């Protein structure tokens, strides 16, 4: 059973752990270096990217996660996780992992009153649309190889992949659709890098 650590500094980590269990993986909370070392893969959940970023620095997890990712540890980032994975965060110098060759715009669809749900076409997940839950969501302004866009909404990139890294602007963990988590565990995590 795959051991998947969910970064639990702040945000919706509980929901990701439930999704992992439903997919037949073992999810556990990661707050410290010892817990990080047990990860075969990792999820960075939604939350506030400034809060999570600062706590990553404060508790000295930022560099260890980057090193593990460079050695091939798969990471899925949702919403704040997408922001933290991005190399460039437009208009911000906040702490980040910066692992994906993308430019991200925070709160790109507007404030909470503009948060929305929409059906998404995500070709890698099959023909059935995916229930997208966007909460003060970011999108990617720019995606450079080796990163590639996997889905768009209203012309904006809302899902991307780079080797064993996967990021989504929406929250699959707030739905009952397991396909993003399955795609991460079965396809992205096993990819050659």
């Amino acid at each position, binding site marked *: 059973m795959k051991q998947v650590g969910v970064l*639990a*500094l*702040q*945000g*919706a*980590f*509980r*929901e990701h752990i439930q999704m992992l269990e439903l997919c037949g993986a073992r999810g556990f909370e990661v*707050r410290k270096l010892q817990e990080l070392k047990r990860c075969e893969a990792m999820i960075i959940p*939604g*939350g*506030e990217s*400034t*809060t999570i970023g*600062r*706590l990553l620095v*404060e*508790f000295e997890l930022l560099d260890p996660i980057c090193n593990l990712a460079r050695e091939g540890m798969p990471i899925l980032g949702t*919403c*704040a996780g997408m922001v933290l994975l991005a190399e460039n965060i437009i208009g*911000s110098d906040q702490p980040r992992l910066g692992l994906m060759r993308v430019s991200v715009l*925070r*709160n790109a669809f507007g*404030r*909470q*009153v*503009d*948060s*929305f*749900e*929409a*059906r998404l076409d995500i070709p890698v997940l099959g023909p059935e649309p995916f229930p997208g*839950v*966007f*909460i*003060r969501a970011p999108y990617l302004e720019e995606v450079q190889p080796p990163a590639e866009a996997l889905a768009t*909404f*209203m012309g904006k990139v809302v899902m991307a992949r780079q080797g064993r890294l996967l990021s989504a602007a929406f*929250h699959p963990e*707030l739905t009952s659709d397991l396909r993003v988590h399955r795609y991460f565990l079965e396809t992205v995590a096993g990819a050659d890098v």
Partner: protein
Amino acid sequence: MVAAEKGTWTVKKGLAEMLKGGVIMDVTTPEQAKIAEEAGACAVMALERVPADIRAAGGVARMADPSIILKIMDAVTIPVMAKVRIGHFVEAQILEALGVDYIDESEVLTPADEEHHINKHEFKVPFVCGARNLGEALRRIGEGAAMIRTKGEAGTGNVVEAVRHMRLIMAEIRRVQNMPDDELMAFAKNIQAPYELVRQVKELGRLPVVNFAAGGIATPADAALMMQLGADGIFVGSGIFKSANPAKRARAIVMATTHYRDPEILAEVSRDLGEPMPGLEISSIRPEERMQDRGW
């Protein structure tokens, strides 16, 4: 071809899910908002006065001036909440028009309606409401609150009431979980809560929405105490900007909320924080000045 649906229950409740494990701080100026964001706050509450000052000033406390709220919204990228008086749905309409991210229908302000709370289903912006017990929490959720917090006793720097309210809510949830289905209706009647929501509590083993602690939290230890008692996150009102070193205390409370079960980290972050806010003994507050008794 693509339709986006705004203000759904999922996105209202969802934002609160994203705030979990975090600290929401009361701020009265853009400078304070920046200090809070820099310290790792997951959201700020924009106010004209913190509860301790509202308590001291007396008189009628109302929604803050929109220009204060807008300045704070401009200063930070994290979500901005603001308070309206209980039952004052027009103040809520105004905050929604300003684009505030969350509305707190709060007992800290002077109630505008002594019988009815706001019908929160009517709004696209989500609401958080205070509660002292399970019945009160479920009535607020029934009216459309997408997030609950304990009332505690705001502006006192005294955590005792927040502890009382959190313990009571958790104890009632455990009771419901162990209750046979045929006793749920009478229980719902006794606590004056919607039956459907009581059933959901039994199934989930928790409230159907996120439940934060609020009202009197002043130290990292207070925050960790509330988390260990079952809170999903923390509101700190007067506790930060009424203390001697707000930036340091704010950071310490954020770290304590993340590592709430780790006494070594709690010991480390509790050191050298300077004077906390001065506290108030609850029995020294006249009954008519107790904020937690506002609303029902």
